[in-house]
């Protein structure tokens, strides 16, 4: 039987898992302090138009992903060069997430194990999943998301006695600079990282309204992030949030139900590894696809092994310490990601629209449907 393309639900699940990914373990939006909820909301609002642009690009050329669209719009040479850049971005992002999880596991739970071991295993798993194909990743996502939602709900319920709304005050007082800066960071990590999805999915009959897919994924994923960071902030307060590398872990540590359900943070964050694995696999998949396209190969699967090795080496030599990782995330990543998340998609979109107008007489056919 023919393998089906991803369904609407699978794509949305993947988007949600991708957005949750490493975001829930890392200290995101520290600049906003107690107004972090506002920063998340602002970041979602900022991401909306960008995401609609991604969706629009895909809808311009049905049955094609960004790589093929690039070739179509920019021509073979330039298009492939741009695809190479995108593959590089996916590669880097994959290494970053891999590193985040490696550091997280290493610092919080098993400090004596070399950092590289969990990273290597995660990398091998992502390699295997990529070799099996996108459908396997999507189905795994369908298995994981309910588990994540289940565990997260219970974690949230157990955390409620520790929530203290006082820690979120004073709210919105002369903190606009912090909020905007935090929102920018949240925009680049994780929301606009969904540009990776343009490489791996394409517009089919089943996922006709690409904008709908993106909006659903962004809003649900963003909602989960909003809930999680706000509750973490309300449990540990802005001072400890800022000081910690992994604030959510600190917050979950405070769970104590009837003196027997305590010290469960390891189990809770095991579940986060599911989301992280999906994010790593998707990025790695995108990197393989992008590179194979840039090199003009039809098949991407043969690239997984050598690229996996390089990925692991890159990730394990990227940072020497958790401090460096945090510093890089807060100081450099925003500027590094900007071209891939905003600039290049904008250019592609505009060129695509122009080409489309040139190609067709009436370009306004379903514009309203898509950008509604």
């Amino acid at each position: 039987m023919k393998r089906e393309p991803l369904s609407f639900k699978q794509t949305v699940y993947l988007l949600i898992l991708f957005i949750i990914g490493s975001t829930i373990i890392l200290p995101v939006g520290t600049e906003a302090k107690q107004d972090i909820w506002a920063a998340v909301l602002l970041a979602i609002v900022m991401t909306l138009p960008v995401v609609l642009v991604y969706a629009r690009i895909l809808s311009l050329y049905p049955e094609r992903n960004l790589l093929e669209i690039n070739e179509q719009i920019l021509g073979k040479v330039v298009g492939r060069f741009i695809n190479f850049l995108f593959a590089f971005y996916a590669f880097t992002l994959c290494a970053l997430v891999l590193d985040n999880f490696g550091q997280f596991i290493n610092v919080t739970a098993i400090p004596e194990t070399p950092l590289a071991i969990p990273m290597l295993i995660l990398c091998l798993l992502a390699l295997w999943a990529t070799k099996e194909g996108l459908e396997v990743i999507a189905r795994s996502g369908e298995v994981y998301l309910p588990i994540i939602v289940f565990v997260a709900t219970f974690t949230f319920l157990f955390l409620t006695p520790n929530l203290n709304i006082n820690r979120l005050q004073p709210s919105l007082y002369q903190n606009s600079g912090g909020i905007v800066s935090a929102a920018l960071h949240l925009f680049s990590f994780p929301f606009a990282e969904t540009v990776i999805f343009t490489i791996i999915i394409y517009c089919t009959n089943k996922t006709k309204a690409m904008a709908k897919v993106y909006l659903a994924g962004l809003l649900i994923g963003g909602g989960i992030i909003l809930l999680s960071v706000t509750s973490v902030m309300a449990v540990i307060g802005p001072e400890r949030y800022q000081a910690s590398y992994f604030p959510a872990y600190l917050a979950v540590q405070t769970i104590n139900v009837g003196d027997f359900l305590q010290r469960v943070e390891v189990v809770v964050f095991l579940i986060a590894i599911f989301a992280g694995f999906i994010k790593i696999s998707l990025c790695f998949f995108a990197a393989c696809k992008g590179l194979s396209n840039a090199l003009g190969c039809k098949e991407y699967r043969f690239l997984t092994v050598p690229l996996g090795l390089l990925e692991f080496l890159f990730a394990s030599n990227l940072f020497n310490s958790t401090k460096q990782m945090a510093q890089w995330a807060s100081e450099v990543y925003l500027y590094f990601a900007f071209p891939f998340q905003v600039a290049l998609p904008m250019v592609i979109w505009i060129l695509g629209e122009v080409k489309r107008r040139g190609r067709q007489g009436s370009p306004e056919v379903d514009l309203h449907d898509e950008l509604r």
Partner: protein
Amino acid sequence: MKKSICVLFVFWHLFVLWSMTGCWNFREIRDLAIVIGASFDKKDDQIYLTVEVLSPKGGEQEQGATGSLGITPQLFEGSGKTVFEAVRNMISKAGRKLYWSHARVFIVSEDVAKEGIIQIIDWINRDAEVRPQTWILVSKGQAAGDILRTQSKLFDTVSMQIDTLLRNQGNSGKLLGVTVGDFLEEMQKPGVGAVAPIIESVKDGREQIPQVKGSALFKGEKLVGFLDGEETMYLLFLRNQMKKGTLIAVTAQQPKANVSLEIFRSHTTKTVRLVDDRPVVDIWVDCLSGIAEISEENDVISERGSQKLTERTNKELRNKITDTIKKVQNEYGTDVFGFGNLIYRERPDLWETIPKGGWAKVFPTVDTNVNVNIMMRGSAKLSEPTRIGE
């Protein structure tokens, strides 16, 4: 076929990896010395650490003992220039690796606390094994190690007794359990001073037993003073941490006129307002309580008597709370009530006018306005005071 060979290779290799390098974080459970409580003393720039350790080795000696664990705790002492060094020096004595995840209490001696507690707090928060949910206490007037050397009558170890006590917070209403995490947060938060409960060893019968009562007040990282049990109760009211089931006693002027009240529910609201450019904190204590004991023949249950009692109680509580605030303001000058944090939260504009680090100067001058509103409900099983027959 090729694929499955690859998969087999992966598994074979994982096995090789496993058997070659061993398991890094592998800890055999019987090799652990489980730390259940620790105390910190200071003498001549050296930190003296005493830990209470549970280890199964002790269990064999105590086979058949009636205690729930059947284990006697062992005490180890170590010293060093830093906490970490003291911990490391102890390994050579204990022989087994100290395992800190199950630690319940940390006791800091008064001397250490007066010089600054940050060293200990930082180590607890930084170390992955030690948990911030551990209780922190200050031993008053004694070496902290001596507390661990006392006897626990109903529990296996002193630390477990203190842990259970603090978790239930007692019904005495005279102590305030604080975890290291909370302590750190209050230490870092603007406009609030940290508090920790006091622990002492007292003689009970023939044995020395630990007693937790009152609270130690910190200004920044340094200990500045103590509140006794009675004042701690008012502190609890002010911090809105009064638990239900607490008993308070109301005394009137004439002898034999005492009434004990049990608190069912208590809620404290604090607001800040400006009077002549100076902040005034209004405090409302709403309290639902019932009569638990009447030691006079007077009628306090009927509507009129109850009203009188309520008035009397309100007045008395208000005075006591105000006195406590005054005492802290004048003698210690640390804002353990969180007035500064209240201003920071509710009037951030006002907070900005206070120069950085200037709150300590402003705090003693803050005016407070305490309102107590006690609602009486019920009088336990008896509807009348116990009368004496003619």
